[in-house]
């Protein structure tokens, strides 16, 4: 599978930051879209169905945690990596409790972020394959639970 098949949505209210980071990730063969606030992020998720979201916390209007909560409810198979300049230990705990895949602080190393995105996508694919295996055995509830990532 080519890396350009990994769809990423970058959500950050600092437009310059989001656009520049998107360009850098695109040069690393990822397919990257951007959103500049929580409401825009939720609309773009419907349109673009990203595999991985890279999400800031402190944004005007809808806070990143609220976006994370909505995404986990409506799109449980989507992986969310928090990337924030604000973060406290409490925020990190809360993000992980809500099912965030990982939590990183700005400024982040691009190679490290790329690795996290690939790892998040790999986990998503593995989960899907495990669910398929259970479904093939007729264990549909288990399969459904795995797709909903009910352990997190």
């Amino acid at each position, binding site marked *: 599978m080519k890396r350009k098949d990994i769809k990423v949505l970058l959500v950050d209210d*600092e437009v*310059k930051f989001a656009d*520049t980071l998107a360009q850098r990730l695109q040069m690393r063969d990822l397919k990257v879209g951007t959103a500049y606030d929580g409401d825009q992020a939720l609309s773009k998720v419907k349109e673009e169905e990203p595999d991985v979201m890279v999400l800031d916390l402190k944004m005007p*209007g809808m806070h990143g945690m609220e976006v994370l909560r909505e995404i986990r409810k409506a799109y449980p198979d989507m992986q969310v990596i928090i990337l924030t300049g*604000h973060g406290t230990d409490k925020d990190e705990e809360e993000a992980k409790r809500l099912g965030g895949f990982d939590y990183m602080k700005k400024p*982040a190393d691009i190679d490290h972020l790329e690795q996290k995105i690939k790892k998040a996508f790999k986990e998503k694919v593995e989960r899907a394959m495990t669910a398929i295996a259970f479904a093939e055995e007729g264990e549909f509830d288990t399969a459904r639970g795995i797709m909903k990532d009910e352990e997190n």
Partner: protein
Amino acid sequence: MEDKNNEDLRFLQLNFIGRILAGFTHEIKNYIAIIKESAGLMGDMMKAGKSGKEESRQYLEIIASIEEQIERTMELFRHLNRFAHKMDTPLASFNVNDGMEELLALLNRSANQRKIILEKDFQKDLPLIQSDPSMLQFLVFCFIQEKLDTLDKNSKIILKTTLINGTVTITIIPHGTSIEAAVKGLCTPEIYDYVMKQLGGEIIHKKEDQGTQITLPLSIPEIFSGVGG
């Protein structure tokens, strides 16, 4: 009672300083992140061997962006430096507009988060006043914070300075819908009164849409008389 007010005030002032610093560090981290990514993008493009007229134009744009972020960072440091030095002396001659400008710059991000606009309406050429610049900034911060906590998004807060009947007047005027908030601002009415007593002025609470007015005398307040040379 005086000791309790003093203690409460000290706690609230530390809270105020903490909030200002937290906002500042968050803002700075964002600017540095943009600088890092911009420099990184140039590096990525050079490693990929991108050169040519179009790429040169892009490189110049990226350099301009880096310069812009550095200037934003320096501007914020200037505000923070002035904010910190206000605490050097409890009595100083100063222009109210400078302190208010600084407060708006430091509160800008917090207001943006809530989608509330902070607007200034400063009378030019206000005479200098003699007062405690740090305490005044704290007081105005408390009033603005209360409005930030109790106004709905897409609202506006106007910070106005005028000279009326020989007194410098600061007015905080909210425009927007009020909301129920779990936490409403930082200070209690007792603390407002206690601070105002030290500043030697008066607080006038007007009707909801006309805001809160703080009037400050131009002369040295009685409390400071006999101090200094």
